[in-house]
């Protein structure tokens, strides 16, 4: 067996072991309201996926709402973060004034930022947007700023001696050097964004996956709370691995390590 196949089979066994442990724990506890068995959760998940839920809204509707919110707020937070980070790299005044504020934003507990945002802007799309921007943008800005600082000046000089146009400089010299920083910000920011969106929905923004957590929590239906949580985690794992990892791989195929894998 290849090294990679061994690693994969160990990982799968680990998950199976957790499920078995859980199963026996649930049987020993014999209280489905506290800890349902994984099998009953699997049934609950199928139910959620095929039957219309409360208020006649299907699971796909809620997933769509959460994804829409996540992508929208994530897009705004990334664009703002990149713009601020670049501005910091270009102007000392901006660097120092923003650097004075960023520790405040980074120290603030995420949950408090979500509280504040919904208190100021209500249980609305604006509320979730402000919460995401408040938490994610400072992180992205710092990361991009570091990328701007790490830019290799000797390559810029090389491009200037060949008289590269401004457009070529940006497209072929600046952006490729920033790309690793953009990607690492991208992944981290995406992970933070969907957690914040789910949290804001749990607090009371209408519809979405987080809204369903809270709905079934109020009914004290442990089976459905867990079913939704597991579906949510699986969905985000698929997005991160299938979509972002592939994008990243394509963007960095010039790295020798990436060529070996293909």
């Amino acid at each position, binding site marked *: 067996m290849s090294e990679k196949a061994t690693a994969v089979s160990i990982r799968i066994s680990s998950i199976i072991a957790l499920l078995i442990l859980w199963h026996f724990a649930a049987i020993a506890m014999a209280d489905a309201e506290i800890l349902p068995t994984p099998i009953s959760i699997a049934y609950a998940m199928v139910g959620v996926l095929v039957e219309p839920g409360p208020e006649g809204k299907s699971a796909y509707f809620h997933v769509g709402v959460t994804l829409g919110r996540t992508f929208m707020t994530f897009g705004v937070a990334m664009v703002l973060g990149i713009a601020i980070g670049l501005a910091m790299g270009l102007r000392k005044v901006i660097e120092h004034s923003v650097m004075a504020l960023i520790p405040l934003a980074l120290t603030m507990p995420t949950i408090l930022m979500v509280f504040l945002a919904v208190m100021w802007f209500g249980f609305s799309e604006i509320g979730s947007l402000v919460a995401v921007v408040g938490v994610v943008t400072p992180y992205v800005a710092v990361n991009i700023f570091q990328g701007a600082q790490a830019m290799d000046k*000797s*390559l810029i*000089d*090389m*491009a*200037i*001696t*060949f*008289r*590269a*146009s401004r457009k*070529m400089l940006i497209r*072929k*010299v600046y952006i*490729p050097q920033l*790309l690793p920083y953009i990607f690492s910000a991208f992944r981290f920011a995406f992970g933070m964004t969907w957690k914040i969106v789910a949290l804001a929905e749990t607090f009371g923004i209408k519809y979405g996956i987080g809204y369903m957590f809270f709905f079934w929590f109020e009914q004290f239906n442990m089976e459905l709370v867990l079913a939704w949580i597991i579906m949510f985690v699986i969905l985000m794992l698929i997005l991160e691995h299938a979509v972002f990892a592939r994008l990243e791989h394509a963007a*960095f195929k*010039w*790295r*020798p390590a990436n*060529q070996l894998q293909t």
Partner: protein
Amino acid sequence: MPIDQDNGHGNVVVSVNNLTKKFPNPMTGKEFVVLDSISLDVEKGNFASIVGPSGCGKSTLLNIIAGIETHDASDGGTLDVYSHSDDAQPRVGYVFQNARLLNWLTVEDNMTFALESQEIPKDLWKERVDKYLEMVGLEGQQKNYPLNLSGGMQQRVAIARALAIEPDILLMDEPFSHLDEITARKMRFDLMEILMHANPTILFITHDLGEAVFLADHIYMMSTKPARIFKHIEVDVPRPRQPEDPEIFDLEKKLVKEFFSVLDAQAIEDG
């Protein structure tokens, strides 16, 4: 930089006259002289080499010619690069100590980056890339990425990139100094081979007198602090040359001796 198409300057490509460069010392605020009234002419098809100790300001001179650094026009010094083609602007190719390739672009795209920057028509690109890659011994590497190549091969790509724009002047700043001696020696032979095919005009900087004597037909010896050219020698040995050729070897020995006498005299002067 003045533009001269009809070549009213004879065969001169680069003309440096009394060029001075001062840097302010950030600690004391006092200016110190990096280049002190440097004068030299490089003619079309010549291989001129500036030899001097490390840190004597040689690279600063190349950077000024390449336009990355400025010089003090107030001191009356002038610097001109003349175009010898139909192009209004002279083309300057630069090979640095490090290859300075864009690692995210293929070998071919690194070369077309220079071609596009120089606004060379797109239909010429493929022909230029293939021709100069073959000339540096890297045929078939078009689609490869720089990080898959050895240091010597990366530097060959950098040379091909600079040659591909068919520059009026090719600036080379100790291009082999970061390579191991065996690779560097092979590269020097191959560069000489290239000279015999493409006949570019080259201004080559090195701290290695042997390298200069082996490659160049004009040698400018530079002292340090401030950098002055104290001697200009013509090397009249036909190519291809051999480093073991007694004529080359004797000249190198003679120049080394001269170099040390000048540097020693300077050391005594400095007290």
